[in-house]
Structure formats: C-alpha cells, structure tokens
C-alpha cells in the first residue's frame, strides 16, 4: 500500500491506496467523490476530467501518488459557498446535457479553457473538447454554454 497526502477541493486527505491506484480510483473509492466518472479508463473520453493545479487532466490515467502535494479540483469543488460556478450556471441555462454523465468532465474542461483563453473562438472551443465524448449529442448546447460563460466572465 502507498501512503500519501492529497489536497482535493481545498481539503487535505491522508490516502492509503495500492501503488497502482489511479487518481480516479482514489477520488471515487477512497473519498466518495463520485462526480468524476469512469468512461473508458484510457483517457479517451473525458468523463474522468479533473483540474490538477487548475489544469484539466484525465484522472483515470493519472497515478494518484503522482498528485501528492498538488491541488486537485473535482466537480464537487467548483461551487463556492453553495453558489454555482459561472460555468455550471451557463450549462444549466443552456441545458447542455441530456443524461448528464459527460457533464462534470465538460464543465471542468470549460473552466480550464476559459482561464487560459478568456475569449475562445468556436474553433478553439471544439479543439479543447475533442477529447470529450457526449454520446447523447449535446455538443451544440455545450458549445453555447461555454460561449455564454465566456461572455459573462468577460463582461465582469
């Protein structure tokens, strides 16, 4: 077993996990944070996306121990003091989901994108989300939600 500390959503956790445990495993099984999803286990679908040090990363192919000492943000950590993050709010208003399984990963990717590129072009949005699958086909609304969130943060 490997022992290390992880900071997730601003809280420090002491983790006891098998050495091969992925960050996804630890988040879901050890910490009960099930908002981050298993979709493929190969980093090809985006469902497991979290922020590590503020940057989007696929937690299913990230060894948990490698993230010791860095700040991890999951979907559960976005809403500050119970108030939805602007990206969450935009996804809600644009109804950018159907089954919702891809949504946490999409939202975190959007948070990362808008931090790096506050005024992304449509082409930049599509590029950022190329690694994310939405089988229900909510792509058009997801793009609209990201545009809306971008517009609002640029007005603020």
């Amino acid at each position, binding site marked *: 077993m490997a022992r290390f500390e992880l900071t997730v959503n601003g809280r420090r956790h002491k983790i006891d996990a098998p050495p091969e445990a992925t960050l996804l495993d630890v988040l879901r099984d050890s910490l009960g944070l099930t908002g981050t999803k298993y979709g493929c286990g190969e980093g090809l679908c985006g469902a497991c996306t979290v922020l590590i040090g503020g940057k989007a990363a696929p937690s299913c192919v990230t060894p948990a121990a490698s993230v010791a000492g860095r700040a991890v943000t999951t979907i559960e950590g976005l809403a500050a003091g119970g108030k*939805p993050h602007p990206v969450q709010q935009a996804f809600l208003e644009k109804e950018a989901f159907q089954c919702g399984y891809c949504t946490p990963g999409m939202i975190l990717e959007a948070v990362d994108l808008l931090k790096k590129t506050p005024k992304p072009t449509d082409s930049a949005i599509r590029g950022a989300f190329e690694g994310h699958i939405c089988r229900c086909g909510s792509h058009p609304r997801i793009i609209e939600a990201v545009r809306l969130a971008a517009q609002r943060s640029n007005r603020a």
Partner: protein
Amino acid sequence: MPDHDLLAEYKRREFLQLLGSGAALTLPVQLGAAETLVRVRLERDGTVLALTGKVDMGQGARTLLTQCVAEELRVPAGKVRLLMGDTAAVPDDGGTWASLTTPETVPIMRAAAAKVRGGAVTPPSEWKVLGRSTPNVNGRAIVTGALRYASDLKEDGMWHGVILRPPSYHGSLVAVDASKAAALPEVKVVREGEFLGVAAPTRERAAEAARLIEAQWKEQPLPALEEMFTLFRQKAAAPVENNETRYPPLIRQGDAGTALAAAARRNQSSYTLAPVSHVPLETRSAIASFGGDGSLTIRTGKQAPFLIRGEVAKALGIEETKVRLIVSEIGGGFGSKQRADVEIEAARLARACGRTVRVHWSRAEEFVWSAPRPAALIEIESGVDANGRLSAWRHRNYNAGAPGLKLPYSIPHHSNEFWRTPAPLRQGSYRSLAATGNNFARESHIDEWAHLLKRDPLEFRLANIEDSRLKEALEKAAALFGWKGPKPGVGLACNLEKNARLALFVELDAAGKEVKVRRMAGVGDFGAALNPSNLQAQFEGALIQGLGGALFERFAFDARTEISRSLADYRLPRFSDLPEIKVEIIDRRDIPAAGAGESPITLPAPAIAAALFTLTGERKRALPLLG
C-alpha cells in the same frame, strides 16, 4: 384558470373525514379494465408523489412525466416527486423503448393526475406547463456532480466482482484452475456452468484474484461480415404475415411481383449495414444483495425494470416476487440496457459469497459483451410507370428487423419484408432498431430513381407522397436549408416513422482530406411538442449519433483478435465532426404527441450518401460510408 389550493379543495370533500386528518390523501385510480393502483398521490407536505415504471436515460422522460402531473394538478413542477423504475413501488409501464413514453405513458399519467384533481384532462388550449420548454428536473444535480448513477452507488460491506470471459468473441469454458486465486485472503471464486467470476472486498483484490485464475476456453469461429451477408441470404426464412405485432414483418399491398414485371422501368439494389456499438458513456453496473429471507434486491441503470427482474429471477431460480429491481440514473442507454446481464453476474456472486456484490463492466466488456445493432442486408427492387410514378416496390430486410418497413411513399403495389436469419454475432436493440437501415436503403433507392429519371430529388419525393404533413416537413426543411435544386455536395432524406414526419437536408465539405458534413437542416413534426426544448435536444442528439453510424462507426470483429474493445479502435462523433445544425419543430397542439427519441436517427445516413453521390458519381450502398 387560477391555481387551486388542492389541500383546501380536498378538505371540502368528505375524503378527509373518511381517511382521518392525519392520513396522506390517497385516491385509488381506476385505469383500464383490471388495473386499480395509486399512481398519483397528494402528500401531506403539499408535494405530489407520482409513480411510473418508465425510466430516464437522458431522453427527458422524468421531466415530461413531471410536467403531466404538474399540469393536471396545477402545481409547480418542483412540487412533483416522480418515482421511476422501482419494481416494488411503481406500476409496470413496460420497458422504456420504442418511443412509447410520449404516446402511451403521457396520456396515462395525465389521466391519473386529472382524476385526482377531479376533472377532465386539460385540453392543449389551456396548457400552462405542457407545451412549454421545461428544464431537466435533475439539472442542478447534474452540473454539481451530485446525481448518482448505477456505477456511483455503494453499500456498506459491498464486495466487488470481476467476471472472467473468453479471449475470443464466443467461447465455452473448458477448464479452470482457481487455486492460486482462492488462496488469497477474502476471495471467493464462483463457477456455475459457463459463469466464472470472483468477488473480493476491494476492486484491486478482485482484479488481482481474476488475474490468478487460469481458465481455458474453447473458441468458436466467427465468419467475417461479408460472409455473414451470404449466410443471411442462404438461411433466411420468409416472413409470416402478422399485423397484430408492434412491428409487422410483412407489409404489403397489391401484387408487387406482377407490378414489377409490368413496370416501364426497373431498378434493383442491395444495401448493407455493419453492426455498430451503442457506447453509452456509462458502462453498466449492478449491485446485488440478498436479504435474510432469500429476497434479492438489485440496483442497476437499465431500461426495463420488470422484464429484467423476471430474467434475473429465472436465471437464479428464484420467484419473481422475491426480486426487487431498483433503477438508478442511467448514463446513456440507446437500447443497449434492456436485458439482464450484469445483474445476473452480480446476483450469482452475491448468492455464492453471502454478501452484497457490485459488478461494474469495463469499457472493453461494454464493447464486446453487450449486443450491437444487427448487421443488415437490404435488397430493394422497384419500378416506375410510364409517367415516372413509383408503381412497384419490394423491400427485403435480412436479419436487422421489421421496424421502419412501412413506406412513407404511396406506391400501389408493394411488399416490405423482414426475413429473419440466424446471426453469429450478439445483436440487440439500438435506437430506432432496423429503421435506420430500412430508411437508409429506401431513401438511397429513391435518390437513385431521382437520378435515373433526371428529376429533382425533392420534387420526386413530393410527387410520390400523399401524407400532407410529410410534404410540409420536406418543404419547410428545404426552406430552412435554402434548397435551390440539386447541387454538388447536397443531399436530402425524409421519413415517416412512429408517427413523426421528418426531413433532413445536408451539405458536405469535400475540400479536406476527409469528407465532412458542413451543415444539416432538419424539420420534425411530432404532433404536439410537449417539451419543445427537450424535443429539439432529442432531434439534434439523434442526428449527431446518426452521423456516426453514417460515416465511420463500425463494430469490428473476427473470431478472436480484431474486435472493437476500446475507444482507440472505435471512432464515434466528436466535437470536430459536428456540423452546423439547424432544427425546426412543427408544433401541432391538437395532434397527440408522438415519441421522438429514435426516429431522427434514420435521416443522416441516406442524406449524406445522396450528397456524397453528387460529389463522386459513385453510389455507396454500405454503411459506414467512409469505410
């Protein structure tokens, strides 16, 4: 009409005195001849509890049925609590499939709620909730990660199961040496006939134990796809007419054979479809636990709770009444989650180790062990009269199915047939069933006629259609698209499927290395649009999914090695594939609403194939179009 104070209204009646002031207000609802059950109930806290055997997998059933109750009981949607898919608590509304929730369960729910109110079902002209875009009632839970799907559920003391499967597509278990695995602490290996699995307190230990089990399988050979089509022709059985079934396998009128022989001009083509995978983003997962009295509870994310409960009971040799199946939120279904599989696996392990066990399939298992959309071979032979009007049509679908056989065109002599055949691959239901293949073949064949006769493909269709709503959908879609007659890179398709009238125009972009769809414009007439925003989402979503099956999706297989097991070797639509999509709904308030979850997926393939023909001059009759 002002909102009622329902509690006040009921207090005026005698029920309260009969039931006692502390009781929840319950009115039995008489539905149909034999059914008396409480489907809608007013709770003391002013909320409304409603019950349905339907489930939600993203298609919007929860919100739609909530709207029905909110409308009829004059309460905000937020006051309605809809319980879905718990076999111990809800009526059996059948599986959530075949686009039936809207035409069948909506009227039932509206009637049940109206009866509680004590009035007639509200007519569309007075709707305040139905007919208005209503957001997904789970929206907040979705965007905060709070919504729990089957694979998110956990129970105290739960063990994890891993199933051992043959390395080949089909295999039978020959020999097992589980001694090394069984030697690990707290590991239980279970073999029951062909079933071989292992359970342990953690996923890691179960996986480790599975790796230590030595199992030998006898592989069974599998023909290649092309060989399958030959097999279908050889082994298929002609259909027996049966108009009492939901999808009649033989739909005929007049004498197609004679009419073909007499036609002024004839055309004959064959079309094929490769199998495709559903790829729900959530792989299936079930938790099974036995109670002290031998009762079994299953938690799973599936589309048919009562059917699956029955299948589990049968597989385990338990009475159905001792099995409770509770459906959780579902991360995508598309038809793949309608039968028992992971539930039986979890239950076998749970029974053998006397513990609650969860089995959660990997993506590879989801690819290989779920049942893809069937491969299809479709042959069409048709004829026109001296005036260029379609006079004879014979459509033969091998293997894939009867859905979508009904002609939207008025052709006096026709025979549309489903020839059932043995199939060597696992195959199952997939959004719209065989209608995707049948419409691809039919619309491609129509496009062939338009070109043979040097006619505009829109005009040719309109000349052979009598249904005025379908004609209107075609004309509106043409306007939405900006159709100005045939042009390179442009194609269209239409359909009348499950009472929906649909039309789609597409434009391709052939400038790059690979053909891409630049834009799509679609129109749908589903009768009354009960939740316009969700209806639009279903239309767009089905078009996008259909793009995949049209262009590049293919479940690849041979007997052993070249099987699609990973997203690395199964291409499906991503953001870079997204065309500009415009969708318009014709909302006919006074026409009972048709379901819309499936039918639009039948449009992209033939529209794109028609557009591709204008660019290359080479008619592609096999899906996926890009190989």
